[in-house]
Protein backbone atom coordinates (compact mmCIF):
# COMPACT_ATOMS: atom_id res chain seq x y z
CA UNK A 1 0.00 0.00 0.00
CA UNK A 2 1.82 2.93 -1.23
CA UNK A 3 -0.43 5.90 -1.23
CA UNK A 4 -3.62 7.43 -0.04
CA UNK A 5 -6.62 7.17 -2.23
CA UNK A 6 -6.51 9.88 -4.84
CA UNK A 7 -10.01 10.96 -3.99
CA UNK A 8 -9.12 11.93 -0.46
CA UNK A 9 -6.05 13.71 -1.60
CA UNK A 10 -7.88 16.02 -3.89
CA UNK A 11 -10.54 16.82 -1.35
CA UNK A 12 -7.90 17.78 1.12
CA UNK A 13 -6.32 20.08 -1.29
CA UNK A 14 -9.60 21.65 -2.23
CA UNK A 15 -9.78 22.76 1.34
CA UNK A 16 -6.27 24.14 1.20
CA UNK A 17 -7.17 25.89 -1.94
CA UNK A 18 -10.04 27.73 -0.34
CA UNK A 19 -7.68 29.16 2.23
CA UNK A 20 -5.38 30.38 -0.50
CA UNK A 21 -7.48 32.09 -3.13
CA UNK A 22 -4.58 33.93 -4.72
CA UNK A 23 -3.48 30.78 -6.44
CA UNK A 24 -5.92 31.28 -9.25
CA UNK A 25 -5.44 34.73 -10.55
CA UNK A 26 -6.82 35.52 -13.94
CA UNK A 27 -5.76 37.60 -16.83
CA UNK A 28 -7.69 37.28 -20.03
CA UNK A 29 -5.70 39.49 -22.27
CA UNK A 30 -3.25 37.09 -23.75
CA UNK A 31 -4.88 33.79 -24.20
CA UNK A 32 -8.50 34.24 -23.42
CA UNK A 33 -7.93 31.88 -20.56
CA UNK A 34 -6.72 32.09 -17.01
CA UNK A 35 -3.12 32.74 -16.20
CA UNK A 36 -0.97 31.42 -13.47
CA UNK A 37 0.14 33.78 -10.80
CA UNK A 38 3.39 35.44 -11.72
CA UNK A 39 6.27 34.04 -9.74
CA UNK A 40 4.12 31.60 -7.91
CA UNK A 41 6.24 28.57 -7.27
CA UNK A 42 3.97 26.85 -4.85
CA UNK A 43 1.98 23.91 -5.96
CA UNK A 44 -1.73 23.89 -5.71
CA UNK A 45 -3.97 21.10 -6.71
CA UNK A 46 -7.24 22.63 -7.85
CA UNK A 47 -7.33 24.95 -10.78
CA UNK A 48 -10.44 26.68 -11.92
CA UNK A 49 -10.86 29.28 -14.57
CA UNK A 50 -12.80 32.39 -13.71
CA UNK A 51 -15.84 32.43 -15.89
CA UNK A 52 -18.48 29.92 -16.59
CA UNK A 53 -16.90 28.73 -19.80
CA UNK A 54 -17.50 25.22 -20.96
CA UNK A 55 -14.71 23.48 -19.10
CA UNK A 56 -13.58 19.91 -18.74
CA UNK A 57 -12.21 18.40 -15.60
CA UNK A 58 -8.97 16.57 -15.93
CA UNK A 59 -7.21 14.83 -13.09
CA UNK A 60 -3.54 14.43 -13.69
CA UNK A 61 -1.12 12.17 -11.89
CA UNK A 62 1.68 14.12 -10.23
CA UNK A 63 4.93 12.88 -8.87
CA UNK A 64 8.42 14.26 -8.62
CA UNK A 65 11.06 12.40 -6.67
CA UNK A 66 12.81 15.51 -5.50
CA UNK A 67 10.14 18.11 -4.92
CA UNK A 68 8.62 18.18 -1.52
CA UNK A 69 4.90 17.74 -1.75
CA UNK A 70 5.20 15.74 -4.92
CA UNK A 71 7.17 12.82 -3.58
CA UNK A 72 3.94 11.18 -2.55
CA UNK A 73 2.03 10.77 -5.77
CA UNK A 74 -1.22 12.62 -6.02
CA UNK A 75 -3.78 13.70 -8.54
CA UNK A 76 -4.22 17.35 -9.45
CA UNK A 77 -7.47 18.57 -10.85
CA UNK A 78 -7.56 21.13 -13.63
CA UNK A 79 -10.55 22.69 -15.30
CA UNK A 80 -9.60 23.46 -18.86
CA UNK A 81 -11.79 25.42 -21.24
CA UNK A 82 -13.14 23.17 -23.92
CA UNK A 83 -12.78 23.93 -27.59
CA UNK A 84 -13.96 21.83 -30.50
CA UNK A 85 -11.47 19.20 -31.56
CA UNK A 86 -9.55 19.46 -28.30
CA UNK A 87 -7.33 16.49 -27.54
CA UNK A 88 -6.01 15.18 -24.27
CA UNK A 89 -2.63 16.58 -25.23
CA UNK A 90 -4.14 20.03 -25.84
CA UNK A 91 -5.73 19.84 -22.43
CA UNK A 92 -2.53 19.04 -20.57
CA UNK A 93 -0.65 21.67 -22.56
CA UNK A 94 -3.28 24.17 -21.57
CA UNK A 95 -3.03 23.15 -17.96
CA UNK A 96 0.74 23.44 -18.08
CA UNK A 97 0.90 26.79 -19.79
CA UNK A 98 -1.86 28.36 -17.78
CA UNK A 99 -1.97 26.73 -14.39
CA UNK A 100 1.14 24.85 -13.51
CA UNK A 101 4.33 25.09 -15.59
CA UNK A 102 5.85 22.20 -13.71
CA UNK A 103 3.34 19.77 -15.19
CA UNK A 104 5.59 17.45 -17.16
CA UNK A 105 4.94 15.13 -20.08
CA UNK A 106 6.61 14.19 -23.32
CA UNK A 107 5.13 15.38 -26.56
CA UNK A 108 6.37 16.61 -29.87
CA UNK A 109 4.65 16.04 -33.19
CA UNK A 110 0.98 16.52 -32.19
CA UNK A 111 0.04 14.19 -35.01
CA UNK A 112 0.51 10.64 -33.82
CA UNK A 113 3.84 9.93 -35.45
CA UNK A 114 6.47 10.58 -32.81
CA UNK A 115 5.02 8.26 -30.20
CA UNK A 116 6.05 10.40 -27.23
CA UNK A 117 2.73 10.97 -25.58
CA UNK A 118 1.24 7.60 -24.75
CA UNK A 119 -0.61 8.09 -21.46
CA UNK A 120 -3.01 6.05 -19.41
CA UNK A 121 -6.25 7.89 -19.97
CA UNK A 122 -9.38 6.77 -18.17
CA UNK A 123 -7.94 3.32 -17.77
CA UNK A 124 -6.61 2.79 -21.24
CA UNK A 125 -3.32 3.39 -22.98
CA UNK A 126 -3.80 6.12 -25.56
CA UNK A 127 -1.86 8.75 -27.41
CA UNK A 128 -2.72 12.12 -25.91
CA UNK A 129 -2.64 13.87 -29.26
CA UNK A 130 -4.93 11.35 -30.89
CA UNK A 131 -7.58 11.23 -28.20
CA UNK A 132 -10.46 13.67 -28.43
CA UNK A 133 -11.55 15.08 -25.09
CA UNK A 134 -15.14 14.93 -26.25
CA UNK A 135 -14.93 11.14 -26.48
CA UNK A 136 -14.08 10.74 -22.82
CA UNK A 137 -16.09 10.56 -19.66
CA UNK A 138 -15.42 13.17 -17.04
CA UNK A 139 -13.43 13.57 -14.91
CA UNK A 140 -10.69 12.53 -17.24
CA UNK A 141 -7.94 10.72 -15.42
CA UNK A 142 -4.57 11.04 -17.01
CA UNK A 143 -1.78 8.88 -15.67
CA UNK A 144 1.62 7.77 -16.85
CA UNK A 145 1.82 4.42 -18.62
CA UNK A 146 1.43 1.53 -16.19
CA UNK A 147 4.16 -1.04 -15.69
CA UNK A 148 6.92 1.41 -16.38
CA UNK A 149 8.84 3.34 -13.78
CA UNK A 150 7.57 6.86 -13.38
CA UNK A 151 10.25 9.49 -13.77
CA UNK A 152 8.04 12.47 -13.10
CA UNK A 153 4.37 13.27 -13.59
CA UNK A 154 3.39 11.65 -16.88
CA UNK A 155 6.92 10.78 -17.92
CA UNK A 156 7.91 7.14 -17.63
CA UNK A 157 11.26 5.51 -18.07
CA UNK A 158 11.27 4.06 -21.57
CA UNK A 159 14.67 2.38 -21.36
CA UNK A 160 13.31 -1.05 -20.71
CA UNK A 161 11.01 -0.76 -23.68
CA UNK A 162 13.88 0.37 -25.90
CA UNK A 163 16.00 -2.53 -24.72
CA UNK A 164 13.30 -4.99 -25.68
CA UNK A 165 12.94 -3.35 -29.07
CA UNK A 166 16.65 -3.58 -29.66
CA UNK A 167 16.81 -7.17 -28.48
CA UNK A 168 15.26 -8.45 -31.69
CA UNK A 169 17.96 -6.93 -33.92
CA UNK A 170 15.60 -4.33 -35.29
CA UNK A 171 17.34 -3.80 -38.56
CA UNK A 172 17.19 -5.12 -42.06
CA UNK A 173 19.88 -7.66 -42.82
CA UNK A 174 19.76 -9.17 -46.29
CA UNK A 175 22.08 -11.93 -47.40
CA UNK A 176 23.09 -9.93 -50.40
CA UNK A 177 22.16 -6.70 -52.09
CA UNK A 178 22.03 -6.16 -55.86
CA UNK A 179 25.34 -5.44 -57.53
CA UNK A 180 24.49 -2.20 -59.24
CA UNK A 181 24.53 0.82 -56.95
CA UNK A 182 21.33 1.94 -58.57
CA UNK A 183 19.72 -1.47 -58.66
CA UNK A 184 17.02 -1.93 -56.07
CA UNK A 185 15.93 -5.16 -54.46
CA UNK A 186 12.60 -6.24 -55.80
CA UNK A 187 9.69 -6.68 -53.48
CA UNK A 188 6.27 -7.79 -54.56
CA UNK A 189 3.32 -5.62 -53.76
CA UNK A 190 1.77 -8.50 -51.91
CA UNK A 191 4.78 -8.82 -49.67
CA UNK A 192 4.88 -5.13 -48.94
CA UNK A 193 1.21 -5.32 -48.14
CA UNK A 194 1.93 -8.14 -45.74
CA UNK A 195 4.51 -6.22 -43.74
CA UNK A 196 2.88 -2.83 -44.20
CA UNK A 197 1.01 -2.63 -40.95
CA UNK A 198 3.96 -3.90 -38.98
CA UNK A 199 6.17 -1.11 -40.29
CA UNK A 200 3.93 1.55 -38.81
CA UNK A 201 5.04 1.17 -35.23
CA UNK A 202 6.01 4.48 -33.63
CA UNK A 203 7.56 3.00 -30.49
CA UNK A 204 5.00 4.58 -28.22
CA UNK A 205 5.01 1.68 -25.79
CA UNK A 206 1.24 1.64 -25.33
CA UNK A 207 0.97 -2.02 -26.25
CA UNK A 208 3.80 -3.02 -23.99
CA UNK A 209 2.21 -1.20 -21.10
CA UNK A 210 -1.16 -2.83 -21.68
CA UNK A 211 0.12 -6.40 -21.72
CA UNK A 212 -0.28 -8.26 -18.45
CA UNK A 213 2.38 -10.73 -19.41
CA UNK A 214 4.89 -7.97 -19.99
CA UNK A 215 3.89 -6.62 -16.60
CA UNK A 216 4.56 -9.93 -14.91
CA UNK A 217 7.52 -11.22 -16.86
CA UNK A 218 10.01 -8.43 -17.01
CA UNK A 219 12.02 -10.15 -19.70
CA UNK A 220 9.14 -10.81 -22.05
CA UNK A 221 9.99 -9.20 -25.38
CA UNK A 222 6.54 -7.77 -25.61
CA UNK A 223 4.22 -7.09 -28.51
CA UNK A 224 6.09 -4.17 -30.07
CA UNK A 225 9.41 -5.96 -30.25
CA UNK A 226 7.77 -9.11 -31.57
CA UNK A 227 6.02 -7.01 -34.17
CA UNK A 228 9.37 -5.55 -35.10
CA UNK A 229 10.74 -9.05 -35.55
CA UNK A 230 7.71 -9.89 -37.67
CA UNK A 231 8.34 -6.85 -39.81
CA UNK A 232 11.73 -8.21 -40.85
CA UNK A 233 11.06 -11.94 -40.69
CA UNK A 234 8.20 -11.57 -43.14
CA UNK A 235 10.02 -9.24 -45.53
CA UNK A 236 10.93 -11.32 -48.56
CA UNK A 237 13.97 -9.17 -49.22
CA UNK A 238 15.66 -10.34 -46.08
CA UNK A 239 17.85 -13.42 -46.26
CA UNK A 240 16.87 -16.86 -44.99
CA UNK A 241 19.79 -16.96 -42.62
CA UNK A 242 18.69 -13.90 -40.76
CA UNK A 243 15.08 -14.99 -40.80
CA UNK A 244 16.02 -18.21 -39.04
CA UNK A 245 18.10 -16.28 -36.56
CA UNK A 246 15.16 -14.01 -35.86
CA UNK A 247 12.85 -16.95 -35.35
CA UNK A 248 15.32 -18.27 -32.83
CA UNK A 249 15.37 -14.98 -31.00
CA UNK A 250 11.64 -14.76 -30.72
CA UNK A 251 11.34 -18.43 -29.80
CA UNK A 252 13.32 -17.99 -26.66
CA UNK A 253 11.88 -18.52 -23.27
CA UNK A 254 10.74 -14.92 -23.02
CA UNK A 255 9.66 -14.66 -26.61
CA UNK A 256 6.45 -15.44 -28.46
CA UNK A 257 5.45 -18.34 -26.25
CA UNK A 258 4.83 -15.98 -23.40
CA UNK A 259 2.06 -14.26 -25.32
CA UNK A 260 -1.29 -15.43 -24.02
CA UNK A 261 -3.29 -13.78 -26.77
CA UNK A 262 -4.65 -11.22 -24.42
CA UNK A 263 -5.35 -8.77 -27.24
CA UNK A 264 -4.84 -5.72 -25.04
CA UNK A 265 -1.91 -4.71 -27.21
CA UNK A 266 -3.99 -4.86 -30.37
CA UNK A 267 -6.76 -2.90 -28.72
CA UNK A 268 -4.59 0.00 -27.65
CA UNK A 269 -2.18 0.32 -30.56
CA UNK A 270 -2.72 3.83 -31.94
CA UNK A 271 -1.43 2.70 -35.31
CA UNK A 272 -3.97 -0.12 -35.53
CA UNK A 273 -1.28 -2.73 -35.93
CA UNK A 274 -2.80 -6.22 -35.58
CA UNK A 275 -0.19 -7.19 -33.02
CA UNK A 276 -1.79 -10.37 -31.73
CA UNK A 277 -2.20 -11.57 -35.28
CA UNK A 278 1.45 -10.96 -36.01
CA UNK A 279 2.57 -12.69 -32.85
CA UNK A 280 0.36 -15.67 -33.61
CA UNK A 281 1.76 -15.87 -37.09
CA UNK A 282 5.25 -15.91 -35.67
CA UNK A 283 4.29 -18.74 -33.35
CA UNK A 284 2.97 -20.75 -36.24
CA UNK A 285 6.05 -19.93 -38.31
CA UNK A 286 8.23 -21.14 -35.47
CA UNK A 287 6.26 -24.34 -35.00
CA UNK A 288 6.25 -24.98 -38.74
CA UNK A 289 9.94 -24.49 -39.21
CA UNK A 290 10.57 -26.79 -36.30
CA UNK A 291 8.14 -29.45 -37.42
CA UNK A 292 10.08 -29.98 -40.62
CA UNK A 293 12.49 -31.90 -38.47
CA UNK A 294 10.07 -34.72 -37.85
Amino acid at each position, binding site marked *: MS*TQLPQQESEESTAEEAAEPAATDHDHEHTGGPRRDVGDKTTDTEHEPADTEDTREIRVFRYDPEIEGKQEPRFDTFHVPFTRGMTVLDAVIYARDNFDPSLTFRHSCRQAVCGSDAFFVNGEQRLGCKTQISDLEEPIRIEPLPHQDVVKDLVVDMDHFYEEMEAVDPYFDPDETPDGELEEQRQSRANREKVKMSTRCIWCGACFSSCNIAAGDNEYLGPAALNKAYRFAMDEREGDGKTQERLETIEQDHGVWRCQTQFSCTNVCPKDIPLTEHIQELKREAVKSNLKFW
Partner: protein
Amino acid sequence: MSQSYNRGTIESFSRWREFSAGMWAWIFHKFTGWVLVGYLFTHIAVLSTAIPAASADPSTLAASGDIYTQTIVTLEELLLVRILEVGLLAVAVFHILNGLRLLLVDLGIGLESQDKSFYASVMLTGAITVASVPTFLAGAL
Protein backbone atom coordinates in the same frame (compact mmCIF):
# COMPACT_ATOMS: atom_id res chain seq x y z
CA MET B 1 18.27 5.42 -13.87
CA SER B 2 16.09 7.95 -12.23
CA GLN B 3 14.13 7.29 -9.14
CA SER B 4 10.84 5.76 -9.70
CA TYR B 5 7.74 5.14 -7.83
CA ASN B 6 5.58 2.09 -7.73
CA ARG B 7 2.03 3.22 -8.13
CA GLY B 8 0.66 0.01 -6.75
CA THR B 9 -2.93 0.51 -5.85
CA ILE B 10 -3.60 3.52 -8.00
CA GLU B 11 -2.56 1.59 -11.00
CA SER B 12 -4.47 -1.54 -10.32
CA PHE B 13 -7.63 0.39 -9.62
CA SER B 14 -7.91 2.15 -12.87
CA ARG B 15 -6.49 -0.75 -14.75
CA TRP B 16 -9.77 -2.60 -14.82
CA ARG B 17 -12.00 0.29 -15.59
CA GLU B 18 -11.83 -0.02 -19.27
CA PHE B 19 -13.43 -3.24 -20.38
CA SER B 20 -11.40 -5.22 -22.81
CA ALA B 21 -12.80 -8.52 -23.98
CA GLY B 22 -9.49 -10.22 -24.69
CA MET B 23 -8.12 -9.43 -21.30
CA TRP B 24 -11.15 -10.67 -19.43
CA ALA B 25 -11.16 -13.80 -21.52
CA TRP B 26 -7.59 -14.31 -20.44
CA ILE B 27 -8.44 -13.80 -16.80
CA PHE B 28 -11.44 -16.13 -16.92
CA HIS B 29 -9.46 -18.73 -18.77
CA LYS B 30 -6.78 -18.62 -16.14
CA PHE B 31 -9.26 -18.82 -13.36
CA THR B 32 -11.20 -21.69 -14.87
CA GLY B 33 -7.99 -23.53 -15.73
CA TRP B 34 -6.82 -23.36 -12.14
CA VAL B 35 -10.18 -24.49 -10.84
CA LEU B 36 -10.06 -27.43 -13.22
CA VAL B 37 -6.59 -28.52 -12.09
CA GLY B 38 -7.71 -28.18 -8.54
CA TYR B 39 -10.69 -30.30 -9.32
CA LEU B 40 -8.63 -32.87 -11.15
CA PHE B 41 -6.57 -33.47 -8.02
CA THR B 42 -9.59 -33.69 -5.73
CA HIS B 43 -11.42 -35.79 -8.23
CA ILE B 44 -8.67 -38.39 -8.34
CA ALA B 45 -8.37 -38.25 -4.57
CA VAL B 46 -12.08 -39.03 -4.23
CA LEU B 47 -12.00 -41.68 -6.92
CA SER B 48 -9.06 -43.44 -5.37
CA THR B 49 -11.36 -44.63 -2.63
CA ALA B 50 -12.01 -47.26 -5.29
CA ILE B 51 -8.67 -48.83 -4.43
CA PRO B 52 -9.70 -50.03 -0.95
CA ALA B 53 -13.20 -50.69 -2.30
CA ALA B 54 -11.83 -53.13 -4.84
CA SER B 55 -10.88 -55.52 -2.08
CA ALA B 56 -14.28 -55.30 -0.49
CA ASP B 57 -16.63 -58.17 -0.40
CA PRO B 58 -18.74 -58.73 -3.55
CA SER B 59 -21.94 -58.51 -1.49
CA THR B 60 -20.94 -55.22 0.03
CA LEU B 61 -20.28 -54.05 -3.47
CA ALA B 62 -23.61 -55.32 -4.67
CA ALA B 63 -25.35 -53.52 -1.80
CA SER B 64 -23.41 -50.40 -2.66
CA GLY B 65 -21.98 -50.50 0.84
CA ASP B 66 -18.37 -50.13 -0.22
CA ILE B 67 -16.40 -47.12 0.77
CA TYR B 68 -16.22 -45.78 -2.79
CA THR B 69 -19.93 -45.86 -3.47
CA GLN B 70 -20.66 -44.54 0.00
CA THR B 71 -18.34 -41.61 -0.42
CA ILE B 72 -19.89 -40.67 -3.72
CA VAL B 73 -23.40 -41.06 -2.43
CA THR B 74 -22.69 -39.03 0.70
CA LEU B 75 -21.15 -36.27 -1.33
CA GLU B 76 -23.91 -36.26 -3.88
CA GLU B 77 -26.47 -35.92 -1.15
CA LEU B 78 -25.13 -32.55 -0.18
CA LEU B 79 -26.83 -29.67 -1.94
CA LEU B 80 -23.60 -27.73 -1.73
CA VAL B 81 -21.79 -30.39 -3.73
CA ARG B 82 -24.52 -30.32 -6.36
CA ILE B 83 -24.24 -26.56 -6.63
CA LEU B 84 -20.49 -26.83 -6.82
CA GLU B 85 -20.94 -29.33 -9.61
CA VAL B 86 -23.02 -26.86 -11.55
CA GLY B 87 -20.21 -24.39 -10.96
CA LEU B 88 -17.72 -26.94 -12.19
CA LEU B 89 -19.74 -27.47 -15.30
CA ALA B 90 -19.84 -23.73 -15.93
CA VAL B 91 -16.12 -23.52 -15.40
CA ALA B 92 -15.43 -26.48 -17.64
CA VAL B 93 -17.76 -25.29 -20.37
CA PHE B 94 -16.27 -21.85 -20.39
CA HIS B 95 -12.77 -23.24 -20.43
CA ILE B 96 -13.67 -25.52 -23.31
CA LEU B 97 -15.39 -22.86 -25.36
CA ASN B 98 -12.80 -20.24 -24.73
CA GLY B 99 -10.14 -22.88 -25.26
CA LEU B 100 -11.62 -23.47 -28.70
CA ARG B 101 -11.62 -19.75 -29.26
CA LEU B 102 -7.95 -19.65 -28.33
CA LEU B 103 -7.17 -22.54 -30.62
CA LEU B 104 -8.78 -20.63 -33.47
CA VAL B 105 -6.80 -17.56 -32.53
CA ASP B 106 -3.65 -19.65 -32.61
CA LEU B 107 -4.52 -20.75 -36.09
CA GLY B 108 -5.05 -17.14 -37.03
CA ILE B 109 -8.76 -17.57 -37.62
CA GLY B 110 -11.20 -14.83 -36.77
CA LEU B 111 -8.83 -12.55 -34.91
CA GLU B 112 -10.91 -9.51 -35.74
CA SER B 113 -13.92 -10.97 -34.04
CA GLN B 114 -12.08 -12.23 -30.99
CA ASP B 115 -14.27 -10.07 -28.76
CA LYS B 116 -17.45 -11.46 -30.30
CA SER B 117 -16.29 -15.01 -29.85
CA PHE B 118 -15.55 -14.24 -26.22
CA TYR B 119 -19.06 -12.93 -25.67
CA ALA B 120 -20.41 -15.96 -27.47
CA SER B 121 -18.43 -18.25 -25.16
CA VAL B 122 -19.77 -16.48 -22.11
CA MET B 123 -23.34 -16.61 -23.31
CA LEU B 124 -23.17 -20.21 -24.39
CA THR B 125 -21.63 -21.14 -21.07
CA GLY B 126 -24.48 -19.39 -19.32
CA ALA B 127 -27.08 -21.12 -21.43
CA ILE B 128 -25.61 -24.59 -21.06
CA THR B 129 -25.17 -24.13 -17.34
CA VAL B 130 -28.72 -22.96 -16.81
CA ALA B 131 -30.08 -25.75 -18.98
CA SER B 132 -28.20 -28.35 -17.01
CA VAL B 133 -29.33 -27.20 -13.59
CA PRO B 134 -32.35 -29.60 -13.43
CA THR B 135 -30.20 -32.60 -14.36
CA PHE B 136 -27.57 -31.72 -11.81
CA LEU B 137 -29.91 -31.02 -8.98
CA ALA B 138 -32.14 -34.02 -9.72
CA GLY B 139 -32.57 -36.16 -6.66
CA ALA B 140 -30.91 -33.70 -4.35
CA LEU B 141 -33.94 -31.60 -3.63
